[in-house]
């Protein structure tokens, strides 16, 4: 006969106001197997816990129920107390009589609440009788991290992890780390030069002996689970030997072919052998193979001829490298929505309609104009510039419904840069609302209006067209209630921040969730902002949604601290709520394998003594399984059970109802 104790919590008045806790305790005492019951004001308080421990010892309890709040709140607390009193912690069960009972019943006579609490507790008691002691799963942890994405968030995460004494592989798709931030001119609200604050960090990442840079590389496959990931990285052929290249730049000098520069967003050209920008890290050029005549047609080869250390190899091929890692930080960043979607704004047709990021390049001292604001069509200095905010943002019909968050601030910055660089020039800003929540942000926008003379117009632009060589901007000023037409020399579109192309593919490889805009989902938007549903994979920066540099950096550091905490022990313990397969009844239909959202189910071969495979069965990888129970529902032969929630336990509870 089991010896069960039932502890009913009053939770101050939270439960006691609509539940007669004393009566619940008394009623439970009448059930077979229940040897001890009590009710108490706050079970979670220290005296409450002490009482519980003592009761376990004095009554030699082998299982206990705490009827209190949601298990999300204090299951851990009570299980710990039970463990301290010498019980297996999984012999402690919680009945939720607060959120699921007292809070939803307003009957002050306590009749309904009491009856329901009795029912719920009785069910849990019957369930507890079928409990098996469980032990935490111990997983060894490989203390190396992979950071995907070498923008500011990824760089920060890598630096912090390395600082904490752990090794990091930083994987970047482009030939250089730096990300979108490397493109920016100045940064709001301090107006310090983006490259001046970013490049020291890039160099630090390169020089840090615990950080290995895998540039021009992409993650192709991720296997394993927390503490034990195997990450396959495709290291695209650079056609330049990274080890031997000195970065002298002679090859770039001599390359006779030019193509449009993606880094400069089409505002200038680059050579076919190139580094994206002068401060690239690593300072090793790559050959753009589709455009290289040597690789395509075996003609030219000028770069190889001039290369001193002879490090150019036209026959180089992509390499697949596997990395064993304990944790992964995803910091893949964002891109801008293609402006071509907005035909009414003339992007692509009218040359002097550009994007905000292109304006950054025009204003950047390392950009195509050396930092002078010159319009793309004829190189003239524009005397009037119209900035249009919310292009694609807050536009459910053609773009995205969310606010891109950074555009209000960077547009204010653009108007400031413009007024500093073009004296006498006039900027106009069409906005819907100014969102400048942040330290010194509102003052920054006011400064753009009051000191730098930007003309802010509250309204959206309907269309942009050309008339007699001028760009006409037709919109509304809703504050005066009139239609507005402005003759502009240049128009800058603040286009929406969107997730990167291929963000969904990577998420599927990693087994992490994403929303309808393909931004990655954090585990909990408030309390677990850098974790994902897949243990051991963390997020940082704009791959989660629009955010500015300070936030991205903070998240990089937050993700790093999570990684370091994980790496602080040799083994990690995790809840043993995982599925288990009954190997004798499994008929290998693999429905569980397709159903499992975490790829936790593997095929296991059963062999005879000679080593011949006689049949296959499903096997659950405890490290990966999250205990969601989908496989249990999918299994046709009822061969899978979820530990802690076995069919036997669940049916016992239902029968007791």
């Amino acid at each position, binding site marked *: 006969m089991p010896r069960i104790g039932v502890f009913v919590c009053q939770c101050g008045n939270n439960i006691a106001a609509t539940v007669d806790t004393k009566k619940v305790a008394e009623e439970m005492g009448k059930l077979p197997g229940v040897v001890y019951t009590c009710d108490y004001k706050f079970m979670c308080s220290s005296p409450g816990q002490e009482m519980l421990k003592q009761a376990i010892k004095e009554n030699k309890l082998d299982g206990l129920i705490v009827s209190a709040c949601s298990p999300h709140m204090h299951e851990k607390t009570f299980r710990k107390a039970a463990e301290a009193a010498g019980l297996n912690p999984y012999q402690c069960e919680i009945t939720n009589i607060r959120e699921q009972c007292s809070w939803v019943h307003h009957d002050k006579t306590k009749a309904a609440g009491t009856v329901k609490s009795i029912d719920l507790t009785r069910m849990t008691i019957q369930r507890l009788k079928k409990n098996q002691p469980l032990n935490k799963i111990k997983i060894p942890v490989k203390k190396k991290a992979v950071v995907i994405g070498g923008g500011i968030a990824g760089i920060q995460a890598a630096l912090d992890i390395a600082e904490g004494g752990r090794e990091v592989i930083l994987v970047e798709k482009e030939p250089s780390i730096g990300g979108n931030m490397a493109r920016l001119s100045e940064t709001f609200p301090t107006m310090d030069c983006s490259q001046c604050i970013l490049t020291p960090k890039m160099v630090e990442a390169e020089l840090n002996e615990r950080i290995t840079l895998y540039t021009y590389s992409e993650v192709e496959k991720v296997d394993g689970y927390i503490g034990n990931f195997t990450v396959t990285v495709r290291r695209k052929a650079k056609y330049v030997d990274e080890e031997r290249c000195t970065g002298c730049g002679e090859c770039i000098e001599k390359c006779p072919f030019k193509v449009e520069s993606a880094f400069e967003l089409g505002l200038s050209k680059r050579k076919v052998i190139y580094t994206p920008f002068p401060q690239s890290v690593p300072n090793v050029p790559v050959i753009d193979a589709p455009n290289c005549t040597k690789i395509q047609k075996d003609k030219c080869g000028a770069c190889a001829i001039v290369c001193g250390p002879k490090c150019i190899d036209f026959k180089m091929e992509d390499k697949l490298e596997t990395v064993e890692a304990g944790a992964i930080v995803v910091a893949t960043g964002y891109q801008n929505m293609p402006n071509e979607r907005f035909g009414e704004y003339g992007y692509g*047709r009218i040359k002097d309609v550009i994007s905000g990021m292109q304006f950054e390049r025009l204003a950047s001292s390392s950009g195509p104009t050396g930092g002078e604001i010159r319009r793309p069509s004829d190189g003239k200095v524009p005397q009037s510039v119209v900035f249009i905010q919310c292009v694609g943002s807050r536009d459910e019909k053609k773009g995205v419904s969310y606010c891109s968050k950074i555009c209000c601030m960077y547009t204010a910055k653009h108007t400031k840069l413009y007024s500093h660089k073009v004296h006498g020039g006039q900027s106009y800003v069409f906005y819907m609302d100014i969102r400048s929540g942040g330290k010194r942000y509102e003052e920054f926008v006011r400064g753009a209006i009051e000191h730098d003379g930007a003309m802010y117009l509250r309204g959206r632009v309907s269309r942009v067209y050309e008339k007699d060589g001028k760009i006409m901007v037709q919109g509304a000023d809703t504050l005066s209630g009139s239609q507005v037409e402005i003759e502009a020399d240049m128009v800058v579109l603040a286009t929406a921040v969107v997730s990167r192309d291929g963000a969904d593919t990577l998420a599927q490889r990693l087994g992490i969730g994403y929303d309808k805009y393909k931004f990655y989902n954090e585990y909990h938007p408030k309390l677990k902002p850098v974790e994902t549903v897949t243990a051991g994979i963390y997020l940082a920066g704009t791959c989660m949604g629009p955010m500015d540099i300070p936030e991205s950096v903070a998240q990089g550091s937050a993700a790093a601290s999570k990684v370091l905490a994980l790496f602080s022990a040799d083994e990690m313990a995790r809840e043993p709520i995982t599925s288990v397969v009954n190997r004798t009844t499994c008929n290998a239909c693999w429905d569980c394998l397709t159903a499992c959202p975490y790829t936790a189910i593997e095929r296991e071969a059963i062999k005879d003594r000679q080593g011949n495979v006689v049949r296959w069965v499903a096997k659950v990888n405890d490290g990966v399984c999250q205990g969601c129970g989908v496989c249990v529902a999918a299994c046709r032969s009822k061969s899978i059970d979820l530990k802690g929630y076995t069919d036997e336990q669940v049916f016992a509870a239902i029968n007791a109802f």
Partner: protein
Amino acid sequence: MKIPYYPGCTLNTVAKQFDTSARESASSVGFEMKELAQWNCCGATFPLTPDNVIGLTAPAKVLSNASKEGDTLTTLCAVCYNVLKRTNKVIRDNREKRNVINGFIEEEYDGSVNILHYLEVLRDKVGFDKVKASVKRPLKGIKAATYYGCMLLRPFEDIGIDKAERPTIFEDLLAALGAEPVEFANKIECCGAHLAMNNEEVVTTLSGKVMTSAVGAGAELIVTTCPLCQFNLEKSQPKVAEAGSGYSPVPVIYFTQALGLALGQDIATLGFEKNSSDIMPLLKKKGIA
């Protein structure tokens, strides 16, 4: 290829040249427009409020008649096209309304007819390549403004003949005919439409903007797809010219007249005399006639 054809009231009366030039041109590129045996007015406006179901009965009747003659229906007038296509969508997608409408018109129509504008027939059924190959009198050197107006394009999700903001179907046709389409600001802006009835001032302003932006962009000819656009432009042109600002009138013609011209039809049969602007000096200047 025979395609059932709905001319609509205006093409049967004041815009006869639009109709005849289209029929002639069709035969030169290999299809025949078979006028519906029975048809009525489409109502000339699609009711914008879902509450107004009665306004859908007239076009529904046309569609129901058309369904008895084939699975497609072509039309020329941009308004008729808009009304028929949108009504058809309502009947197809909204069962409740379909029942009400069918009750009124005493038919069982399900919205299965595919409504194609003549331009779509040329693009999708004939192919602009074939049109180009059939050109006998290329409109070489003529800078033409392709005026879409509103009804051919909006609303995009119901009409979808081409992109709402940057359409090219009309320019592609004119280019196939050998003309040089010009890009102009007001090519998808309103001409003033039925305000012609009680507000001439607004019509003159709006049509004036269309024409000045076209001519300002270098157009020597304006081509239209809608009899009401054609009417408003032609009627406003002298007033715009009179108002000064150096605007000088250009010929305004239906796109089917341009098509017929390029396909080598007898110029006398194209009904240019019915247009209020004279195209002949331009044709002579370009050595086309």
